[in-house]
């Protein structure tokens, strides 16, 4: 346990005063045509003034339901079935609609996941903001305006006057989220609920918002509930944490207690399935939690986590499991009847650590690859002016190579051209310039239809969205079989079927999935089928475009692990596209950092994650929330938004946001590609010595101790 890991948060005040919010044995159900869905059962929570409480859990475990229940806004079909809900000591369930209206938005405010969706598209920001004081405090227009303006400045929005007049769609996602937060803070609420406030944002933007939230907590003395599925974020923002699983709180306590001395197998499973900085795929592989989250109406008897638990004993499913206090930690409780018996420091039982595998010959060589999109502006005016065609420079001069059995990760913020590169490689788009040599064929300019089946088969792809990756109208088997036949691996009916079965085995799916339709599969299972399909043609290179970013952490681990395993055994080259740097660090051999279509840094994983950094890489790294309390991180918050690819800035592409900008040169000249060591290259004007002198972003406790 290390209290001093981060910037010190106000220590959890164990106060005797009335908590801002107290939920006691709260049970919430939804009523659907399938019957009652008990979404949340026996939920307890206390929030004190100035305290930030985090709620984590996988998708569907009831986090949002809790938040909405606190707002007393359950929709048509939701109902609080039992329990108490006290706001400042007063029972909210007994309040009338009028009283609730008085509380909502004034004493209790909420921020949601999708900032764009939660702002009214047809109203100016100022109107939406001013409503709050106008309604709750009955102030005049002018004062409301002033207060809104001041609050916008408080949430660090540039040019608040302009933003006041703007419509939501005219400002960026990060700004929108700040507006929503400003709206929530306008009436100085006693309790602020944040439901995944940053999930829809890029990491660099997320970092800014997280900073803001931390600041608010300390400045306004607001009680906060922060909902997230990201343990790292909770660690960075909260004092206390409640871990939810399948509608129940399974563990709660202070962040330090839970992160360092968890007392529930599920919490442990969560931690083991996320890559922590410093973790290595060979030494500390991710350990997925087996099985799946049960649906609310199909929960097992006794411990909900029982079927997935490594420590399961028959007693676990005997009856309902109560929350119990962890001895000697008055604030730490767990819903495990065996937490005293379990050895919490034992190494994971079946962590199959592996040897690093040697790389093979070069398989793919990308050389000066450019992809420009031309977007036609079809307005008459543009045609007359001759500006009918605008160019989107999605990829600018990519250079790298990949070897057999190597994992090359491509990282960068949204819109930096990662998917475009994948498309060019796959032949869905043709390169504007440059070469991409697979084996000994240049495929950069050959569309997929003109490629030979073998070539096509050698280059396959795993897609991001598990819900989209399979055609909902065909069975799993037929979709894999089609690939096998198409790539001419097998033609004979029986043999094709055999091969499909082998592939299902390979991705650890039961063989009877052959006849299933995608809608009968969970997200993780679909992604496995996607992997099976990608490997059906014995590919030499597999491009995985954010293959796990839409999955829950526990499933993420399983799918990532699986992908790695298959790649290793097949000695396939993997191009892993991601924005999740922890994951990249965990699994990649080589990392390519992209910004606005430019390759700004490349090198082996160790090289990229240690100084010298490209300033962008540095910022990206620092933005990654880390769930390891022993790791300390330098905070760098980037200003501004990512520029448009249609209108890139002159000189260095990163100059508009660079925290280490050195002067005019950055704005006028394209930076040189500096090489450090063998393959480590950085696109920057800053002198190599200076770059090398950068301190690392992460420091672990040992490293700090060593200093």
């Amino acid at each position, binding site marked *: 346990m290390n209290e001093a890991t981060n910037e010190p948060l106000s220590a959890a005040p164990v106060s005797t005063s009335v908590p801002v919010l107290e939920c006691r044995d709260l049970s919430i159900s939804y009523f659907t045509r399938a019957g009652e869905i008990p979404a949340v059962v026996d939920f307890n929570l206390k929030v004190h003034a100035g305290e930030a409480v985090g709620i984590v859990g996988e998708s569907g475990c009831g986090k949002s339901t809790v938040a909405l229940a606190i707002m007393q806004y359950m929709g048509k079909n939701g109902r609080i079935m039992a329990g108490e809900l006290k706001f400042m000591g007063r029972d909210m369930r007994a309040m009338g609609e009028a009283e609730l209206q008085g509380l909502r938005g004034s004493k209790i405010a909420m921020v949601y996941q999708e900032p764009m969706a939660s702002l009214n598209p047809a109203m100016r920001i100022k109107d939406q903001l001013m409503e709050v004081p106008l309604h709750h405090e009955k102030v005049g227009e002018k004062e409301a305006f002033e207060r809104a303006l001041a609050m916008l400045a408080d949430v660090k929005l540039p040019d608040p006057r302009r933003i006041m007049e703007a419509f939501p769609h005219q400002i960026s996602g990060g700004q929108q989220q700040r507006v929503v937060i400003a709206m929530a803070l306008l009436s100085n609420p006693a309790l602020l609920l944040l439901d995944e406030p940053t999930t829809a944002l890029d990491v660099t933007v997320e970092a800014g918002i997280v900073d803001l939230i931390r600041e608010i907590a300390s400045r306004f003395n607001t009680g906060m509930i922060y909902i997230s599925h990201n343990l790292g974020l909770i660690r960075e923002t909260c004092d206390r944490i409640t871990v939810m699983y399948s509608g129940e709180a399974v563990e709660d306590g202070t962040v330090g207690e839970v992160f360092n001395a968890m007392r529930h197998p599920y919490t442990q499973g969560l931690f083991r399935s996320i890559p922590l900085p410093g973790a290595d795929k060979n030494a500390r592989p991710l350990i997925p939690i087996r099985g799946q989250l049960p649906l609310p*109406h*199909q929960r097992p008897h006794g411990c909900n986590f029982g079927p997935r638990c490594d420590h399961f004993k028959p007693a676990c499913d005997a009856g309902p499991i109560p929350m119990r206090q962890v001895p000697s930690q008055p604030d730490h409780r767990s819903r495990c009847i065996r937490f005293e018996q379990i050895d919490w420091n034992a190494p994971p039982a079946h962590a199959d650590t592996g040897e690093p595998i040697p790389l093979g010959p070069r398989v793919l060589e990308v050389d000066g690859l450019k992809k420009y999109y031309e977007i036609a502006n079809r307005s008459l005016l543009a045609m007359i002016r001759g500006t009918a065609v605008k160019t989107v420079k999605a990829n600018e001069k990519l250079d790298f190579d990949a070897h057999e059995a190597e994992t090359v990760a491509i990282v960068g913020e949204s819109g930096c051209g990662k998917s475009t590169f994948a498309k060019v490689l796959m032949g869905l788009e043709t390169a504007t310039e440059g070469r991409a040599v697979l084996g000994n064929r240049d495929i950069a300019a050959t569309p*997929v239809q003109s490629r030979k089946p073998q070539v096509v088969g050698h280059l396959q792809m795993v897609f991001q*969205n598990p819900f989209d990756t399979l*055609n*909902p109208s065909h069975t799993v088997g037929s979709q894999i079989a089609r690939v096998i036949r198409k790539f001419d691996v097998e033609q004979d009916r029986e043999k094709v079927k055999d091969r499909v079965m082998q592939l299902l085995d390979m991705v650890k799916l039961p063989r009877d999935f052959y006849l299933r339709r995608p809608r009968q599969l969970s997200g993780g299972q679909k992604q496995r089928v996607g992997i099976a399909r990608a490997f059906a043609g014995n590919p030499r290179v597999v491009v995985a475009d954010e293959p796990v970013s839409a999955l829950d952490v526990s499933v993420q681990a399983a799918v990532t692990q699986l992908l790695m395993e298959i790649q290793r055994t097949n000695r396939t080259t993997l191009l892993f596209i991601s924005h999740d740097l922890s994951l990249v660090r965990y699994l990649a051999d080589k990392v390519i950092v992209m910004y606005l279509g430019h390759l700004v840094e490349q090198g082996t994983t160790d090289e990229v994650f240690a100084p010298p950094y490209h300033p962008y890489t540095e910022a990206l790294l620092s933005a990654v929330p880390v769930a390891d309390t022993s790791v300390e991180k330098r905070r760098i918050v980037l200003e501004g938004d990512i520029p448009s690819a249609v209108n890139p800035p002159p000189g260095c592409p990163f100059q508009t946001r660079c925290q280490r900008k050195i002067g005019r040169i950055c704005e006028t000249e394209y930076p040189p590609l500096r090489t450090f060591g063998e393959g480590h290259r950085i696109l920057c004007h800053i002198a190599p010595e200076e770059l090398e002198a950068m301190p690392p972003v992460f420091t672990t406790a040992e490293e700090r101790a060593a200093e």
Partner: protein
Amino acid sequence: MATTFDARPAAPPLLDRLSAPKAVLILVALMWVPLTLYVMAGRNLGVLQPYILLPAIPATLILYVLAVRAWRESWTAVIGATLVFFWLLMAVSAPYLPLLDPNKPIAPFVLPFSHGKVGDTFFWLGTDFKGRDMLSRTVWGCQRVIVWGVTATVVAYVVGTLFGLIAGYLSGWWDELITFFGNVLLSFPVMVLFIVVLNYLGPSGFNIVIAVTFASAPAIMRIVRGLTLDIKSRDYVFAAQTRGERPFYIMIFELLPNVRGPIIVDACLRLGYTTVAITTLTFLGLGLQPPDPDWGLMIKEAAKTAMLFRFSYMLIIPALSVSTLILGFNLMADGLREISLRD
């Protein structure tokens, strides 16, 4: 955990088996093919004619049971299906019901629920101005509307979907061209288009099919094009492209099955519109031709002979009949949408 989720009684296995897509398809064919042949080929069927509709009756009944079972979640859909299947059943069983000859003049202007002046025939719904039995004409009258309405809608969908897929998937010039012609057709008000086309081709069932296709296909094309534009950016389409599938394969096997869902709801609505259109056209003298009974014709004929409160049953009966059929289609569409939104 006690839930009501699995508390449903186990369904009889037979019905389950019949609900399989293949079985439903066979049942639909059993119902539809004879009916279509009966209406379109008519006398040319020769000796087959009296028997051909026999298999359609049980098929229709089974389909009804299946529909009610599948849609029991939505009352709206069940009511809609009940109305539609009632008329379908009437259509397939008309020849076997104890009805008077719908074309035979017996005694004109007999009011409903009364005997004519001559003979002792009791007329449930009275007779029309020519003395033909209204009940029998009403029952027989649904055959042509249903058959031509459905055929026209189906043809319009085939054409519209095809062009929509091409425009949406291939984009570029194909899209420009198809969309432009779609716009040309769409900018004719439907009725203008109907009038022009039918006036040119002459009034007949087949020409109604053509006219409806001209009028509906562009709208369907737009819908399918929109859906295609959405679906074509799905990963599974990329997956198909990355394995080098031909555009045709992608359109038919990857896109088509997935535009099906939203289209079925739209099709129910459009069936309603087509039924309205056929009735209206027939009323205007551009649609189906006498003498065989048809609701639009019954309205047309009665509109000039029954403008008296006493005789208004001649107008009201076909008007209500066609309204119930359309209401059925609309409720079905609403219900299906409701069901699809819930999933």
